[in-house]
């Protein structure tokens, strides 16, 4: 009786309420985490001191940004290539293959570039942040920082959050350029669209608001991924197993949140600024 078994395993109303409560508690905690980090950093600025070390900001920026360029570039290049090829064959049937450049450029700048970058950053950098801070938490390093009278949020979380916040749009731009470059190669090789003509078509179809939308999204995704990763890292409990659990949870939460926020953003944006 697989149906009866499945019914028995379904969460009851009380469990659903508990799941909702946990979800809301988590959302609230991450929100407070961002606010507290900001508050701790601002207090430090008010004292006329830098909220964190410039060296640690640059180190995180290199790790999160510069070192992510090959991965983001390569994945976006392949995706741009595939997209141009598959859509091109369909459009060719109607003789409208000159729509490919615009299609790829708009899809990436507005949607796929920030989204792909967000997912890759969550997996690559979010996991690293959580594991690193989680290990520090387990080894009492975070508590030691706190015990010295140094705010752990501004000292440990703020440079990571700022690095990802600022570099996510840069990586998103790398993603867009790689995808457009890949589609230009496909257009030249399969659909006889010369490179300069390809650029004209991109310029004709791409609007400034598409670019701004993508960049704004990237800022938001960068902040969310870093906040979730740092929050999960600093709340690790239960030794090495806890680090593993929170790292997995960080990646899953960050990817889900990025996709969720992307949807909300699109719904709000298209409602308030319909094309």
């Amino acid at each position, binding site marked *: 009786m697989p149906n009866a078994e499945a019914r028995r395993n379904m969460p009851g109303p009380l469990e659903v309420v508990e799941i909702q409560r946990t979800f809301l508690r988590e959302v609230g905690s991450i929100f407070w985490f961002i606010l507290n980090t900001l508050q701790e950093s601002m*207090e430090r600025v008010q004292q006329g001191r830098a909220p964190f*070390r410039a060296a640690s900001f640059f180190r995180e920026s290199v790790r999160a940004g510069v070192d992510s360029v090959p991965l983001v570039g390569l994945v976006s290049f392949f995706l741009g290539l595939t997209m141009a090829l598959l859509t091109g064959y369909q459009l060719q049937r109607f003789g409208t293959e000159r729509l490919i450049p615009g299609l790829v450029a708009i899809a990436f700048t507005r949607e796929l570039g920030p989204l792909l970058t967000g997912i890759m950053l969550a997996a690559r950098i979010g996991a690293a942040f959580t594991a690193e801070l989680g290990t*520090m938490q387990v*080894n*009492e*390093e975070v*508590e*030691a*920082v*706190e*015990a*010295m*009278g*140094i*705010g752990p949020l501004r*000292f440990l979380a703020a440079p990571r959050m700022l690095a990802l916040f600022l570099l996510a749009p840069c990586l998103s731009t790398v993603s867009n350029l790689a995808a457009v470059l890949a589609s230009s190669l496909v257009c030249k090789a399969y659909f006889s669209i010369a490179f300069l003509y390809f650029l004209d078509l991109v310029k004709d179809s791409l609007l400034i608001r598409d670019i701004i939308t993508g960049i704004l999204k990237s800022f938001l995704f960068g902040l969310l991924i870093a906040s979730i990763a740092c929050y999960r890292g600093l709340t690790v409990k239960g030794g090495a197993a806890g680090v593993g659990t929170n790292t997995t949870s960080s990646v899953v939460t960050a990817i889900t949140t990025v996709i969720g926020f992307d949807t909300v953003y699109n719904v709000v944006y298209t409602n308030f600024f319909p094309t």
Partner: protein
Amino acid sequence: MVQLRDVNMQFEGKKVLEGVLLNVQPQERLVIMGQSGSGKSTILRLILGILRPDSGSVFFKQYEINRLKRRKLQQVRQQIGMVYQYSALLSSLTVRQNVALPLEELTDKSGSEIDKIVDEKLELVGMLDTKDLLPDELSGGMRKRVALARGLVLDPELVLLDEPSAGLDPVIATVVDELIINLTQKSKATSIIVTHEMESAFRIATRMAMLYEGKIIEEGEPEKFKQSKNPVVAQFLSGSTEGPILEGSLDAIRKK
């Protein structure tokens, strides 16, 4: 200097501290003894304000630690040095950077002043030649000494030490104990040391307290402690298996 007034604390329903009363005088070295998991380290965390008691008050000088706001608490913590059981040195920073961290983050001293102080503190603990190494490249005893240097770098009025000689060989343990005595005497700091290593406790202490089942059951000078009639203290000091500690649970272990 430090006062715990009727402090109660429980973790997940388990009572760890029950009405703890403790008074620490300036410049004394109070050793708190007790079994593993008896709540000794919890007392240190309460004094630092990392944990808040369920009820009761924790005072450091005129400050009621458990009522301080975050910003004030951070300022007060700068007068307290903490040395952790496993050193808790930041693994990504070198020995020098670890010791310099509180100075760089919390004071307006110039780079050369900081270098001078760091060298001075590292020399005091005999670790000057390791200043460019990472904590992973040091032995347990060396890490403890660096942690001690870091704990004392701001010349705190109160030093808290969590199991300073645990896991060290007897010679290094004596070195660390003597360092604690010399350094706290020199800086006129008050210190609270948590340990269950008897030799180390008697070497360091000017006063001792025994924590058992969440309560301070005995308090006094080391000599008075040695002659205590309290069966728990007597059993703890002798390390005997016969007595109130582990009563019942020991039979279960033996049966296995």
